[in-house]
């Protein structure tokens, strides 16, 4: 079987860092939950500008890949996979616009709209499958997260404790048929039983596109936040443990674990469950907040740049999506360092 490598990652954070006070000092801000780790506000996060789209962010995130690997090589990718939250258009993803901006002509172009906060893992799996079963040689996988500066800054939503947690950003991965920085294995699960538990909440019950004054926010159906916590606690350690079993290592052999970062409680619980010290579970929560799907590639880029992920490390990327409808983990023997 062809070996596929996660050859490089890059990222982009929009604008200047936004301090916690943007939320905590806002008139009418909820403050009763601020002291709880589940809702403790990250000191900083980034917000997309009002006129900044997912395609804009992807274009900027890909630039370092062009600088390092050459424009021709990046323009020649056979596969383009894009996951964006919030979509800029309700009827089509950002993929074709990204292709237009970057001058790509991929044979395979998929706007991935599932797998949420763990979609980087799923896109890596998709890319690997396409690269091993067709004559495609290279792929670009992109995660753009633009909900924080758009949804969570609305006048009513901004007061909620949950609003101060998300942050915007974009992370991209360059995947190639090579054995240089090989993907060792991937474990993914689609869990239909938990589908639909994360919803768009509006107080007046209108469709999101119908005119009205109510402000859109993320809500949960019957699955209470407590249920989602219980699922998340279980799912991420489960998929990482199964992945480790398949590649024949103990979870304690992981040199660097990078997960999605919904809050500090999940980060603590996952590293405890996998028996990893904090310094081997890398995150960027304090600087960027909950980056949703972009968390994994953005944190990986940051960790490679700061040499927290080193040449030869066993790297595991894992996470779960929405209210638990997807969980996945991927193992890479990392040699994608910056020479």
């Amino acid at each position, binding site marked *: 079987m062809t070996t596929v490598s996660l050859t490089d990652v890059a990222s982009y954070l929009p604008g200047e860092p936004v301090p916690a006070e943007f939320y905590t000092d806002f008139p009418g801000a909820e403050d009763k939950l601020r002291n709880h780790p*589940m809702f403790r506000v990250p000191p900083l996060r980034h917000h997309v500008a009002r006129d900044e789209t997912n395609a804009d962010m992807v274009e900027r995130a890909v630039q370092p890949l062009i600088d390092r690997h050459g424009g021709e090589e990046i323009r020649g990718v056979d596969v383009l996979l894009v996951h964006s939250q919030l979509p800029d258009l309700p009827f089509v993803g950002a993929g074709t616009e990204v292709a237009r901006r970057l001058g790509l002509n991929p044979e395979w172009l998929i706007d991935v709209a599932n797998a949420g906060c763990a979609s980087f893992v799923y896109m890596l799996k998709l890319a690997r499958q396409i690269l091993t079963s067709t004559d495609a040689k290279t792929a670009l996988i992109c995660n753009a997260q633009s909900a924080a500066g758009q949804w969570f800054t609305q006048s009513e939503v901004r007061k909620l404790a949950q609003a101060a947690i998300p942050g915007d950003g974009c992370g991209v991965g360059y995947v190639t048929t090579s054995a240089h920085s090989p993907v060792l294995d991937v474990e993914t699960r689609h869990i239909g039983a938990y589908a639909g538990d994360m919803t768009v909440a509006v107080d007046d019950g209108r469709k999101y596109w119908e005119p009205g004054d109510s402000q859109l926010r993320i809500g949960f159906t019957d699955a209470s936040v*407590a249920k989602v916590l219980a699922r998340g606690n279980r799912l991420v350690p489960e998929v990482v443990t199964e992945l480790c079993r398949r590649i024949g290592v103990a979870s304690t052999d992981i040199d660097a674990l990078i997960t999605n970062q919904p809050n500090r409680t999940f980060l*603590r619980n996952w590293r405890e469950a996998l028996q990893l010290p904090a310094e081997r579970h890398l995150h960027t929560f304090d600087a960027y907040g909950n980056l949703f799907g972009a968390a994994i590639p953005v944190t990986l880029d940051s960790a490679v740049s700061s040499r927290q992920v080193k040449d030869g490390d066993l790297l595991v990327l894992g996470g779960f999506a929405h209210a638990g409808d997807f969980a996945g983990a991927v193992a890479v023997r990392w040699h994608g360092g910056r020479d």
Partner: protein
Amino acid sequence: MSEESSRLADVPGLVRIENAGKEELTAHCMELTHAVYPHDQVYGQYCTIHEYVDCPPEQAYDYLRRGHHLEEWTCSLRDFAPTGTPGLWVGHDRLEDDTRIYCKVVANPEAMTVDFHCSWDQGEHLWMIYLMRVVPAQLVLDKPGSVITWTNCRHPYYDDNPHPGLAPRPDRPWVGDYWDLFYAGHTVEMRNLKAILEHRHHNGLEVGSAPARAVAQ
């Protein structure tokens, strides 16, 4: 403010819906919820286990409260005989050679609690107490049968034998040395208990058995 609530106001550290609010209470509980817990955190000071047994609760309770059945379902308690003290029995704990265990059963039929007050080597102070309870499964699991719970608390004597001189020999290991294995050991015994009760109940057999030594109860 009522007298009751003002008395509560003096108590530091209370978390109640009146002062925390629903969301804060939920967040607080989430923070206390981990994905995994170290063995010592769960079983370090108290060891509670529980099991569902497909046997009517009255029969399970009656079996449990009759002390001579310990010789059937425990791993190592054998050869119980009466002492001169009414209700106090002495047997061997074959976990260690030449080790005597004293035992008194304190049962409450209304609550279906069965407590075994025990100790090694001497019968004057029964400090090693096994707290067991049979709960009708119909009430708690909506199905026939029993739920049996079993708790031990880490009495200081587990860590420090108060009468080392009573040991049959100086190098005899102490019961408290096994504390970290209590979860496992008691689980094995609970499974024995379940197996015996279910086998006899499912096959229409008498659940209890006669004591090896006839004794005036």
